[in-house]
C-alpha cells in the first residue's frame, strides 16, 4: 500500500495531496501545470517535498518530521518518463538490463529473465537496436520493460500514451491493463486525457492547480 501525504511549494503553484493506493491503477488527472509530474517525482525520490510523508508497503520513504528521505535508487519504484529517457548509447537489451544488479544477472534471483520481459512486451526482435532506431510505441515498450525488469513495488507512468498515434495508443492501453494484472503492483498513471482516464483508471485523483479536487473510485 502506498501512502502519500505531501505539500510542496513551486514557483507559481503549491501542491497539496493526500491519497493512498492499495492495488490497481490510480490515474492522476489534471491539466498541464497542475503539478502531476512533481507528485511522481516526489514519490520516486527525484524531488523532495517540503512537508509530509510518503510510505510504501510500510516502509517510510520520506518523512519531514522524522527527517527521513530515502534516495531514489533504494526505493524500488519503477518510473516510465514522459519522453522515455532511454539511454541513447545503449542497445535495447542493455537499456532493459541497466537496472539489474550484476549479482542477480548471474544468480538468476529475479522472477523473470530479460527474454521473458522482452517477449511479453513484444520487443524481442528489437533487442540489438539503439533507441534512435525505434518508433514511439517501441520506445514506450522498452521504457516499460526497463522499469519492470527491476521488479519494482510500484510503477509510475508520466503521460505514457501522449506521444503515440491513435493505433499505438489503443494497443498500449490494453497492454498496460494486462501488465498491471500480471504484475500485481499498483500503477500510478499521470494523464491529461479524459479518454485515457476512463479506460485505465480503477481510481482517479483529480488535480487542479496543485490541489486535490476529489479522490474517488471511478464510476
Amino acid at each position, binding site marked *: 500500500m502506498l501512502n502519500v501525504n505531501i505539500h510542496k511549494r513551486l514557483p507559481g503553484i503549491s501542491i497539496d495531496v493526500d491519497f493512498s493506493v492499495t492495488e490497481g491503477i490510480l490515474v492522476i488527472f489534471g491539466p498541464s501545470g497542475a503539478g502531476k509530474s512533481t507528485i511522481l517525482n516526489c514519490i*520516486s*525520490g*527525484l524531488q523532495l517535498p517540503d512537508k509530509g510523508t510518503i510510505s510504501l508497503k510500510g516502509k517510510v520513504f520520506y518523512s519531514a518530521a522524522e527527517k527521513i528521505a530515502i*534516495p*531514489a*535508487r*533504494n*526505493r*524500488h*519504484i*519503477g*518510473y516510465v*518518463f514522459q*519522453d522515455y*529517457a532511454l*539511454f*541513447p*548509447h*545503449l542497445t535495447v537489451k542493455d537499456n532493459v538490463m*541497466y*537496472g539489474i*544488479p550484476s549479482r542477480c544477472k548471474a544468480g538468476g534471483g529475479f522472477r523473470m529473465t530479460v527474454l521473458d520481459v522482452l517477449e511479453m512486451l513484444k520487443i524481442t526482435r528489437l533487442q540489438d*537496436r*539503439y*533507441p*534512435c*532506431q*525505434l*518508433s514511439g510505441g517501441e520506445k514506450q515498450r522498452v521504457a516499460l520493460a*526497463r*522499469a519492470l525488469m*527491476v521488479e519494482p513495488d510500484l510503477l509510475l507512468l508520466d503521460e505514457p500514451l501522449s506521444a503515440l498515434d491513435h493505433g499505438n495508443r489503443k494497443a498500449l492501453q490494453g497492454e498496460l491493463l494486462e501488465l498491471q494484472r500480471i504484475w500485481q503492483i499498483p500503477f500510478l498513471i499521470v494523464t491529461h486525457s479524459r479518454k485515457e482516464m476512463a479506460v485505465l483508471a480503477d481510481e482517479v485523483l483529480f488535480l487542479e492547480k496543485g490541489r486535490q479536487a476529489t479522490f474517488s473510485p471511478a464510476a
Partner: protein
Amino acid sequence: MLEPILLSLKVAIAAVVVVFFVGLAIARTMAREEFPGKNVVESLIILPMVLPPTVLGYGLLILLGKRGPIGSFLLETFDVQLVFTWWAAVIASAVVSFPLMYQSAKAAFAGVDISLEQAARTLGAKELRIFLTITLPLAWPGILAGLVLSFARALGEFGATLMVAGNIPGKTQTIPLAIYFAVESGDTDAARNLVLVITLLSFATVFWLNWWSRKKLQVWKKGDSSHVEREHS
C-alpha cells in the same frame, strides 16, 4: 633537434593528463550545481584563456618562486624547487590549456539530458555508476574535443613557459622556445625544421579532430533511422 620535440610531447601529455582529471571534476560540478558566486568562479576559470601568457607566467613565478606561498612551502617541507624545472613547464602548459578543456567538458556535460541520469537513479544505480556508464559516455565527444584542443594548446605554449621554466636545452626547452632562440641566434635551418614539425603536429591534431567529429555519426548520435523508415514504408 629531437630533444625539444620529445620534451614538448612529454610536457604536453603530462599537462593534458592533469587538465583532464581536474577539468572533468570542475566542469561536472559547474554544469550541475548552483552556488553563490558561481559566475565569479566561472570567470576566474576562463581568465587564463584571455590573459597574456606573460601575465600568467608572472603570476606563477610569484606563487611558485622561492619566496612565493607555494614555492616556499615546497622548498621547506620537501626541499623541492619547481621554477626552472620540467615541472614548471608542465604547470604553465596546464594552466594555459585548462580553460579549453573546461569549456568543452562543461558544454558536453550540460548537453547530457538530466532525465537520463534521473532514470538511472530510479533503476537503482549509484552516482559513480551513473557518471561512468551514462554521463561520461554521452559527454565523451565533447570531452575528447577539449582534450585534443588543450593538447594542441599545451604543445604551443611559449610565454608562460619561458618565464617560469626558462630556456634550458634538454630540460625545459620545448619546441616553441627552441624556435625562438634558434631564430635569435641566426640558426634559421634549425628554426625552419622545428617550425615544420610543430606545424605538422598541430595540423595532424586538428585534422584528426575534425575528421573524427564529422565521422561521429555513430549509430546512437545522429541515428541510423533506416530501419524505422524501411518498416514504415
